[in-house]
């Protein structure tokens, strides 16, 4: 069950990263900084929750 949580958070992270990239392209750098920050937080939590030995 824990791998599902890690997966959901990883997916969330990738979408946040995409949104961040879109914001950079459209020149909204303040928003982009926040979104990329949240995406990296998501990546870290997905990594920490990811089941070991896989």
């Amino acid at each position, binding site marked *: 069950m824990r791998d599902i949580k890690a997966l959901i958070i990883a*997916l969330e992270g990738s979408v946040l990263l995409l949104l961040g990239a879109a914001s950079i392209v459209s020149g909204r750098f303040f*928003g982009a900084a926040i979104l990329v920050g949240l995406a990296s937080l998501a990546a*870290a939590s997905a990594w920490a929750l990811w089941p*070991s030995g896989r």
Partner: protein
Amino acid sequence: MWGYAAVGADIYTALGIITLAALGLAPLAFLAAGIVFALVGLCYAELASAYPLAGGGQYFTLRGLGDLSGLVAGAALVLDYTIDISLFTVVAFGYFNYFLPWITFGHHISDFTTTIGPIHLAWLWLVESLAGILVLIWLNVRGIKVSTNFNEIIGTIAIVAQTVIVLAGFILVWKPELVANEFLFDRPSLSQFAFGSSLAIIAFVGLETISQVAQETRRPATIIPRTSIGLVISVLLFAMAFSVLAVGLVHPTEFRGHEGDPVALIASKIPVIGIVAAPLTAAIGALIVFISANSGVVSSSRLSYSMSQFDLLPAWFSRVSKRFATPARAVVVFGGVALLQTIFAFFTPGQPGKSAAIDVLADLYAFGATTGYLLVFISLFVLRLKDPFTPRPYKMPLNIRMTYKGNQVWFPVLGLLGFLGVLFFLIMVILTHQYARIIGPLWVIAAVLLFMVYRRKRGLPMFKTLPRDWETATKKVLLEAEEFKSLEEYEAALSEHRARTGEPGIDLPGTQR
């Protein structure tokens, strides 16, 4: 197995009150509390994997600093668990009341209030909350077995729902320029910010709950650190995401009147899916927050059981009911305290036209958490210096190597930062929380008085730490947890020390000579 429910529920409770207090800088308030919380999380990961015993912060403090400090930490944390019960039950019914207009043909909770002088009493909400707490007491006295699968499924549904709201919100309606605008022009005063960020501790409770179940975990050395760190980061992620989303979606003052169902407010602002997402969020919020309230009942009885095992509380508390095989007395006592707190909170005068219940309970909460965590950090230092023999499967990062009484020890630099952070928050709580600064210390003093009376009656020394055989205790814990490698390392470290210095090695409060 570890319910995200226990930790993830907190943002459902905290979002509204904190955004109202810290206004445009709410994300920063969450971040400030979140950084300190992350350090507390690392500290708990180290201590709970090294000493996997029910009792959590109270046990670490007892072991590092002795009986009286252990009692103070335990009392502070028990206070928090009782507030957990009342605060989370009140908020669970806040989310439930989202559906009230559907049941009562268009009446809102504000229609079921009466004004008595300065008191704005939401009587229906009070009655619901009291009934909710009574149900929790009844369930726990009878002894319920909530299956771990049930918790897992609810936790996963909550994560999915939160993720959907966060992403849909960011994609469809979030305005970064509104965030920037709020940051620049809607700043709270310094004391409002201090109040808001010290409230934000609520968004990050639940760590204690994890250490409470450490004893029931097999192979705690590998499982506890990973789970704690994973939880810390993912809770931080959701708290940050929700607060940034909230500030870029609605004006902070819109949360007024929605302290009971803040996440449902956010969900309702999302176009298209909002019409379904808002009631769904309210339903999930009500359920998950109520489960969290239940974990308050469970943890307060576990903690008081642990305290009476160490002669900090009368054995009366740890007596198990013969009929139901549950710690019925502790459940009834602390459930009763929660009932009183709820009544007190609802009868406190607040701002005109609004019930002060959630504000009062949240205000009280921060004292117990900061006091408990502060003592746990001090114990971390003491245990690192005086008990370098117990194997630590996980150590807080960033340490300075030094020699203490002939032993090589590691001084935790991050631990020191965490200690300073928690101390800062404790000072903020005492400066800005008008209820906590009076009721918190009174509660601790009451616990110390009870402790003195009990010790006097039993003929035990009042302020001296009772003799305890920590070496055998550690070996027993490691054996029961099936941590055989750690057990070998522990025995080897102790015998090496004894051969080298000729001293017994363990120099903790209460060690028998």
